[in-house]
């Protein structure tokens, strides 16, 4: 069934979009990522103009992460307090990130820098997670229990301590604020929601349990993407609500299914799958940069219009 999109001004297959939304929704519910990094190239591929794809997807992510958070709330796997602290850091970071992005743009070659950052960043995060979770799986297979050592380092000497009951943490608010801030900066520069940078950061830097991480990440993604949607709608007029509805119908259902799959899985299995996904995205980006494209030219809208 073909549907004409009023803002994107193209005609698309409705069932294809429902399926795409569902697929990305499952990933979102399982791993606590928005899924923008996967949806953007897919939407480009079916002929949606890039500006519309990026803006509309933010709107769709609001729906799927809200659906996912409700499912996690019922299981009490959302740390609302931690989520709020991360969010405050994230919003400040996003504002800083936009400033940095504009500065880089005035220097030129920002596109190249962003892509390189992205590949290096994803490669490092993905590889570290992969090795860590593989070791964890080996240890459990041998039957040796993983020692749950509480590290008492620098982090525990910082002031402004706060109790994060759901995560089982009693730490200073400074590390989560800084994590939120840096993810916010990166997200604004790279033009992504930052879910799959946030998730590993919460697991490894803040020491939060994997089960709580997914719901908490989705919680803060809702606000970040809602803000992005409004920004795009009011400045670029690029949110296509018809496209968003087609994607989010699949997305909200997928998020529910994804949450159920995620809950049944072991934490290290979840981490290793996320690591593989991050590495796959990294590999795809590296491939695009290194291999000669079949068409050297590309046609786009004039910037600043």
């Amino acid at each position, binding site marked *: *069934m*073909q*549907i*004409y999109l*009023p*803002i994107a*001004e*193209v*005609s698309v297959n409705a069932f294809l979009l429902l399926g795409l939304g569902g697929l990305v929704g499952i990933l979102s519910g399982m791993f606590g990522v928005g899924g923008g990094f996967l949806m953007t190239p897919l939407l480009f591929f079916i*002929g949606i103009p890039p500006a519309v794809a990026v803006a509309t997807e933010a*709107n*769709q992510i*609001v*729906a*799927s*992460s*809200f*659906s996912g958070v*409700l*499912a996690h709330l*019922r299981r009490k796997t959302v740390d609302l307090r931690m989520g709020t602290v991360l969010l405050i850091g994230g919003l400040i970071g996003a504002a800083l990130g936009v400033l940095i992005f504009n500065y880089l743009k005035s220097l030129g*070659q920002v*596109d*190249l820098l962003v*892509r*390189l950052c992205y590949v290096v960043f994803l490669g490092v995060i993905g590889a570290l997670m992969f090795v860590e979770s593989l070791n964890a799986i080996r240890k459990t297979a041998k039957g040796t229990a993983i020692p749950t050592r509480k590290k008492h380092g620098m982090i525990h000497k910082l002031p402004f301590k706060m109790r994060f009951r759901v995560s089982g943490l009693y730490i200073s608010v400074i590390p989560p604020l800084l994590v939120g801030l840096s993810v916010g900066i990166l997200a604004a520069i790279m033009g992504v929601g930052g879910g799959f940078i946030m998730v590993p950061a919460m697991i490894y830097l803040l020491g939060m349990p994997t089960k709580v991480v997914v719901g908490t990440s989705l919680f803060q993604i809702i606000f970040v993407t*809602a803000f992005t*949607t*409004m920004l*795009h*709608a*009011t400045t670029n*007029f690029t*949110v296509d*609500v*018809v496209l*968003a*509805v087609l994607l*989010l*119908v699949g997305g*909200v*259902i997928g*998020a*529910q299914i994804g949450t159920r799959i995620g809950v049944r899985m072991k934490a290290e299995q979840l981490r290793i799958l996320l690591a593989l996904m991050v590495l796959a995205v990294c590999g795809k980006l590296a491939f*695009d*940069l*290194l*291999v*000669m*494209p079949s*068409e*050297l*030219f*590309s*046609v*786009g*809208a*004039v*910037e600043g*219009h």
Partner: protein
Amino acid sequence: MLRWLALFVLVALPAWAEEVVLGLSQDEVAITTSFDGSEILIFGAVKREAPIPEGELGVIVTIAGPPEPVTVRRKERRFGIWVNTDAVEIDAAPSYYAVASSAPLEDVLGVRENLEHRVSVTSKLNAVGAPESVLDASAYVAALIRINTAAETYQLLEDQVVVDEDTLFRTRIRLPAALTEGAYETRIFLTRDAEVVASYETTIDVHKVGLERWLFVLSRENPFWYGIMSLAIAIAAGWTASAAFSLLRN
């Protein structure tokens, strides 16, 4: 004396000897939610008050979508990776362009005539001009044509105009599903021995209707409320799915 004058008029103004009378299957295209492209039948006749003149008759039909500025970027290898380097802005590239002719285009239209009337897509774009800073601007124009032809937004339909008895002609041109709004300039040229002897211009009005129109206008005129509406739909859908799944589970 009068006979001489009549002869003079005939020799001096041969272009008036033939005229185009045109019909369109539709002079407007309404874009609805289920819009999936449209086929336009263009038909007409050659009106003449004198016997059929000498020379091979050719008919060319063009439809051009509203012009829009586009940027064509080229990738180059820098430090081992492929990045966008140079870009050329083309001020007014038609969003859609179709040329249909009764024979191969170069047979029915001379090179000079083509440039003068900007019939082929190349001459239409070249006339726009590119900045002088880029030396091989024509490569960018060629790339734009290549990419748009692959997407079927630029079409060259040679031998697709049917001419009957040197008088009646007709052709079908398919407008793709990815259509922008605006006035689509439609031109018909009659040629004799590759020279234009008569032409006719009209427009086909393409516009969104119903829900499509309402949403488009809302997004431009009330962007804040449009954004709020989009978010409300997202939140409502998220909640509905969650409620439905918990009902299913119980």
